């Protein structure tokens, strides 16, 4: 088996590889299921059914797709420049905390206008996410510190902050008044006017499309324009492909690192705000920390090959998988299966990437002389 570098990449491969990756991942998954004593056929049927076809399945899928649409866009924004922001998880938490905090505050001041709530929550969420991302960005830009590890470490710190706010203190975010809140630690619920609306798609049997998903699609379109049609996007591409050429061309590396990392963090933070406004309405430290939306975003972005437009359908598909995972969780469908599936899809996508870059030749072609000798010998 040998690899030969392709001189040009056929267009059909760009679509065939992701689809093929998912197909191969399903085959590998079937092997894992068989090895652990589960029947793959019924498991997959139930998985697809509760992801997309059952009653109310699509509404539930949008609930899981929306956060990972944002974290996927956040990862794509940074990974495109080979800037590995894996702090999407923590930036998402910070966005959620800031958005809930502001919504609670505005509620206490008696604000009544839903659009004002939405804009305020989105803005403050984005700012909080960007601020949290600015830490690894500054360290990377000015101290050459590996952003992978610093951004990841800050995820754990952000998780501890959630625990502190709700479980270990009497903070502004904690519900101390209601009966449930006095029995066990609980986040305060934001006012009803601060709930983000959702559109009912009657053509699809009344599926609820949350506002956040719409915002995410718009954001993906804007990102696509910025990354493929502007000077800023071009420079990011060059820096990603060859930092040396970028430096020689006079591009400002530090500024780009700061800008891209903060944009990435802002998108993740906005995702946190949307998560609270659309679905959660309060800070739930365990729920947030066991959902792994930030890490799933990396899978989404990689599978979409960091193309913002492709992030939308990928987030929808993986959202279906996540949502089916929650619905089916139990003895026949142990938790963790969804993560295994995501990992397998990502492995296959990585392997598929090789087929885009290289042509695979099976069988070793022996040099002419050797063949001739072999023939005379026989």
């Amino acid at each position: 088996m040998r690899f030969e570098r392709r001189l040009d990449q056929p267009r059909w491969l760009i679509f065939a590889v992701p689809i093929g990756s998912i197909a191969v991942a399903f085959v590998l998954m079937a092997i894992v299921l068989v090895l652990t004593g589960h029947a793959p056929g019924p498991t997959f049927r139930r998985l697809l059914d509760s992801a997309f076809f059952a009653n109310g399945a699509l509404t539930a899928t949008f609930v899981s797709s929306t956060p990972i649409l944002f974290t996927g866009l956040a990862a794509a924004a940074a990974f495109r420049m080979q800037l590995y922001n894996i702090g999407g998880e923590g930036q998402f938490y910070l966005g959620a905390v800031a958005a809930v905090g502001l919504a609670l505050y505005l509620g206490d001041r008696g604000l009544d206008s839903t659009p004002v709530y939405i804009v305020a929550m989105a803005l403050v969420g984005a700012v909080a996410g960007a601020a949290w991302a600015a830490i690894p960005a500054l360290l990377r830009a000015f101290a050459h510190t590996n952003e992978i590890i610093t951004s990841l470490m800050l995820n754990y710190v952000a998780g501890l902050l959630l625990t502190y706010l709700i479980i270990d203190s009497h903070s502004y975010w904690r519900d101390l008044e209601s009966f449930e809140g006095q029995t066990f630690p609980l986040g305060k619920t934001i006012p009803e006017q601060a709930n983000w609306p959702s559109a009912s798609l009657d053509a699809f049997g009344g599926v609820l499309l949350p506002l956040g998903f719409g915002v995410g699609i718009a954001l993906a379109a804007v990102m696509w324009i910025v990354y493929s049609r502007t000077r800023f996007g071009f420079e990011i591409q060059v820096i990603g492909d060859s930092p040396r050429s970028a430096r020689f061309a006079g591009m400002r590396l530090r500024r780009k690192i700061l800008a891209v990392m903060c944009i990435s963090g802002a998108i993740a933070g906005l995702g946190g705000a949307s998560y609270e406004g659309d679905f959660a309405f309060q800070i739930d430290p365990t729920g947030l920390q066991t959902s792994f939306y930030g890490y799933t975003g990396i899978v989404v972005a990689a599978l979409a090959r960091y193309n913002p437009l492709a992030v939308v359908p990928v987030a929808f598909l993986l959202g279906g998988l996540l949502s089916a995972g929650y619905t089916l969780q139990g003895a026949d469908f142990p938790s963790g299966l969804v993560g295994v599936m995501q990992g397998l899809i990502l492995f296959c996508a990585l392997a598929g990437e090789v087929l885009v870059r290289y042509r695979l030749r099976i069988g070793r072609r022996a040099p002419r002389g050797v063949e001739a000798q072999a023939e005379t010998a026989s």
Partner: protein
Amino acid sequence: MTAQVVASGINDSFVVIIVASAVLYGTPLLFAALGELLAERSGVLNLGVEGMMLVGAVMGFWAVQRLDAAGGVSLAGALVVAAVAGAAMALIHAFLVVTLRANQIVSGLALTIFAGAAGLSSYLGNDLNLSGSPADHAFSGLDVASLGDVPVLGPILFDQSALVYLSWALVVGIGLYLARTRPGLNLRAVGESPASADAMGIGVTAYRYAHTLAGGALAGIGGACFSLQITPQWVGGLTGGAGWIAVALVIFAFWRPDLCLVGAYLFGAFSALPSTLQARGWLGGIPSEVFSSLPYVMTVVVLVAVSSGAAKRRLGAPAALGIPYVREER
């Protein structure tokens, strides 16, 4: 008689307890960091340490519950199982990055997602029904030559578990291997300049596979330190980021095994601090989360300190780290 009474007084003091628990909590970090060091010295960056540790932890724990043998045999068997499980995870990474030349960073992240807290380790833990019960056997202090009660040094040096002594042997062994043996020299050549190593007739692919797998095996054992000694039971995601701290440790240690030991115990101390302070009621009104975040915050701080100074001199980092070797394109 009186000597012993005095000794137990000193041995219960805060400093001795912190140092002894720094060794306890530092040991998984040390195993994982040594493993990552071997992989990185061959030029393979493996960010899947956290995932490999968790799979090692869950499989090691499963082995101890299943093996019907005396404590010592069962624990030794569990370490082997944990090492094999970790190496199996590393094999996926090695295949993707060495044979298929995939992006090492993304592949390592994929491995952590695949195997980590929300993936295979949690699946295995649930499917094998492992949570909720304590380990049938756990590693505990060996009290070497009954020196465990010696003042100060006793609890720190002589009353540690077999895992700790194994890790010390590994530090020495890997140090000698890298500096004094032919395969160690070859390994360094592969990590610094695979093209020259290839020209010398060293099998770059074989070295990279072997050391990535060895790294996975050590990460698996590191994970088993949690489920068989520190906790000692199976809890999903019990490593809590230790794998990532281990990746950072290799950087602070300038890719040297002896410095890995120092770094691991430093971070072990940070990890031991919150529970030790809490046990004594010494938190002083400061939220315990502040102490729990110390290992993570200190990782960032130390990384900044090391990278700003060392970036100019490029101390220790293998030159070919993270770069796939393609003979046709050298």
